[in-house]
């Protein structure tokens, strides 16, 4: 029963008047050529009079902060704006209930913040009942009144975010990421009330430390920096302009060296040029200006097929990258192109599927897998080819906590075996935990480039790229007066640092 009606007895168009549903992919939900028409589409279908539609459209667009953009094409909007437009299109139906299925999973941090701000606004101004499914627990903490944890189709925890996120062991066992402050509290003071906010974390650390002090020699940046090996990828004055119309300069004079054995994270807003950059490495796009060198040689002399043996790239959309009838055949495809012996192929397929946890589904048709598993399969297909450089573009989107860390750990393991690993991600927890070096991109340029701990200490510059450091980094910054070592980016890093205090 929803809003007093049994959903099984009613067609979707009737339910649409009571429940608004927003899915994770804004692109697939936008139908009309401009913003106003998108918002008006639902009420038009219900035969709502024109003046009433205009009133509703105005209100819906104001609620999500898109007023003034009525005549814009949805294709011109940012990811966050598109998702807010989908939200507005649902709101114009004046529903009683808003259901959002991972609405921020494909958005950058600023896009996510925009959508969440809209939800907070709707809750405060219109008391809109909202159900939000998400893997992003820090988001839940910020906006939810009530939290339900599902595992294998059953409710395993329910209550206020504070109550639910106190159950650290349970959450960990069902693959839900515990917010960083709660995890820190659990690790340093399990008997005390769970910390949720940075202020609470600060208080808790203060209580744990009491009069303890840090020795001066530890007051240094803790994160490691990578050793510079041979340059494997070198971008020289690299520029790229999408032809349009109108033309769009996606990369502007990029000069960048990637060394053998590095584990590099590339971060930045949607549209900052991250994917355009990595596509240049395999000649999927031809530079408008400048060049890309692989081990000193201009890649223009090679084909993408030839480069693929040395540089593996798993792109964002798994559905465009899966084209065979089973997971096994999908992984085999690249290996057969490498003309490897049958035994070697078999062994690599088993290994790669095992790495991403898909060994049991070896015979499954790839399109039957979940979105997260389809992403994992594309990664498996790339790593099975064992290229020197592995590039993963948003490999962890729509994955749960365990899935995200499994992929990132796999990247780290390959890196430790000598592969150069480059990962594009919006997940700052993964970046801070696994990447030695971080490149921040904004508007087609490299804004910051250096050891991860150093990059995340540049808070003001990060703001320009709309990147928010993870809560633990902010806590570390705020604990500076206590003499705590700076540059801590992970919960374990903070726990270890506190253990050093005497």
């Amino acid at each position: 029963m929803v809003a007093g009606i049994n959903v099984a007895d009613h067609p979707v168009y009737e339910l649409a008047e009571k429940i608004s549903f927003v899915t994770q992919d804004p692109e697939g939900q936008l139908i009309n050529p401009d913003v106003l028409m998108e918002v008006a589409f639902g009420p038009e279908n219900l035969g709502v009079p024109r003046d009433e539609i205009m009133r509703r459209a105005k209100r819906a667009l104001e609620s999500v902060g898109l007023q003034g953009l009525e005549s814009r094409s949805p294709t011109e909007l940012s990811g966050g704006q598109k998702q807010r437009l989908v939200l507005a299109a649902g709101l114009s139906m004046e529903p009683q209930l808003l259901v959002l299925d991972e609405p921020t999973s494909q958005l950058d941090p600023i896009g996510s913040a925009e959508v969440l701000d809209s939800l907070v606004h709707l809750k405060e101004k219109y008391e809109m009942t909202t159900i939000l499914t998400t893997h992003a627990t820090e988001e839940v903490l910020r906006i939810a009144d009530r939290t339900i944890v599902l595992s294998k189709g059953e409710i395993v925890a329910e209550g206020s975010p504070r109550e639910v996120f106190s159950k650290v062991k349970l959450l960990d066992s069902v693959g839900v990421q515990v917010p960083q402050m709660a995890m820190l509290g659990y690790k340093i003071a399990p008997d005390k009330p769970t910390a949720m906010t940075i202020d609470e974390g600060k208080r808790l650390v203060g209580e744990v430390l009491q009069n303890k002090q840090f020795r001066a020699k530890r007051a240094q940046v803790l994160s490691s920096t990578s050793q510079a090996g041979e340059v494997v990828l070198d971008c020289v004055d690299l520029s790229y302009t999408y032809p349009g119309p109108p033309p769009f300069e996606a990369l502007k004079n990029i000069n960048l060296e990637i060394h053998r054995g590095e584990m590099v994270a590339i971060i930045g807003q949607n549209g900052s040029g991250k994917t355009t950059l990595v596509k240049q490495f395999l000649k999927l796009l031809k530079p408008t200006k400048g060049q890309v060198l692989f081990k000193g040689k201009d890649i223009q002399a090679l084909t993408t097929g030839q480069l693929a043996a040395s540089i593996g790239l798993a792109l964002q959309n798994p559905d465009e990258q899966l084209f065979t009838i089973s997971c096994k055949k999908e992984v085999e495809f690249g290996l057969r192109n490498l003309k490897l012996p049958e035994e070697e192929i078999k062994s690599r397929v088993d290994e790669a599927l095992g790495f991403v946890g898909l060994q049991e589904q070896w015979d499954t048709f790839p399109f039957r897998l979940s979105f997260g598993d389809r992403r994992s399969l594309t990664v498996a297909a790339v790593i099975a080819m064992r290229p020197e450089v592995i590039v993963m573009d948003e490999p962890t989107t729509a994955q749960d906590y365990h899935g995200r860390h499994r992929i990132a750990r796999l990247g780290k393991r390959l890196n430790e075996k000598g592969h150069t690993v480059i990962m594009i991600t919006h997940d700052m927890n993964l970046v801070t935990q696994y990447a030695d070096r971080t490149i921040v991109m904004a508007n087609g340029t490299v804004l910051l480039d250096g050891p991860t701990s150093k990059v995340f200490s540049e808070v003001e510059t990060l703001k320009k790229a709309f990147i928010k450091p993870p809560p633990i980094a902010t806590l570390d910054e705020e604990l500076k007066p206590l003499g705590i070592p700076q540059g801590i980016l992970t919960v374990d890093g903070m726990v270890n640092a506190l253990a050093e205090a005497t």
Partner: protein
Amino acid sequence: MASIEYVRKDTPVHNLQAITKIVLVLASFAVSFFALDFVLLGLWILFLLVWWVIGGIDIKRLGIILKILLGTYLFFVLLQGFTYRFGNTVLFQLGTLMVGNRNYAAYTLEGFLFGTLVFMRVLAVVFTLPILTMTTPMTKLAATLGKMKVPYQFTMIFVTGVRFVPLVFQTWTGVIQAQKLRGRDIDKMPLWRKASVYTSVLTPLLLYLLKLSQTLQLALECRAFGSPAKRSYVEETRLRAGDYIALVAVIAITALLVGLKATGYSSTPHLFI
């Protein structure tokens, strides 16, 4: 297809109602059928190009359309050159192929000109389409078709069809790129092997599009598409001064050209008897 998609601009043609442009399309059909003459069709094509200029449509697209239609033109002039029944002036001949009194191996000037004329008829219609599609948002077109009592479901099929075209190209490119990324050296393959690769792309392409259509279906249903309520439209379809001026111009020129032809005018009376 990309050369006829809607481009948002603020021009007098963009500001016209869709019905005015639909009348222009119908007039193009009328002229191409009832005013088959070099001068008359030429004047109509010039008239259409004035619409292109006023509508801010990139004239470079003319070249794209002509390039696409080049094969059609060659087909027309070859076919008519050898088969036009009033062809007398032989330009060259490839031998003798007599059927009745006519040598079908002889290529005639009249046939060449008639083939060109038929091609101009095609151009007259094809040049009109960008004026409709590139200056009219689908919602405006849908509202107009709704007012013309065309069932909204049919309109929606057209609207979503147009929306899917760029997605098909994007997905096609994506799948080809994915195969290259797995070491399939398509760039260096001979043409016949490339063709087999392209065939293998069809399955994932169709599956992906089916999946996408499911998402779209869900999005449509969540916005009450299919509701039995009588649909309303936000788009205004009332004619304004600009529409009346354009309609008068279209109807007057159509009547003039068709009228001239009906009264026996021909710019090449000695050729087409």
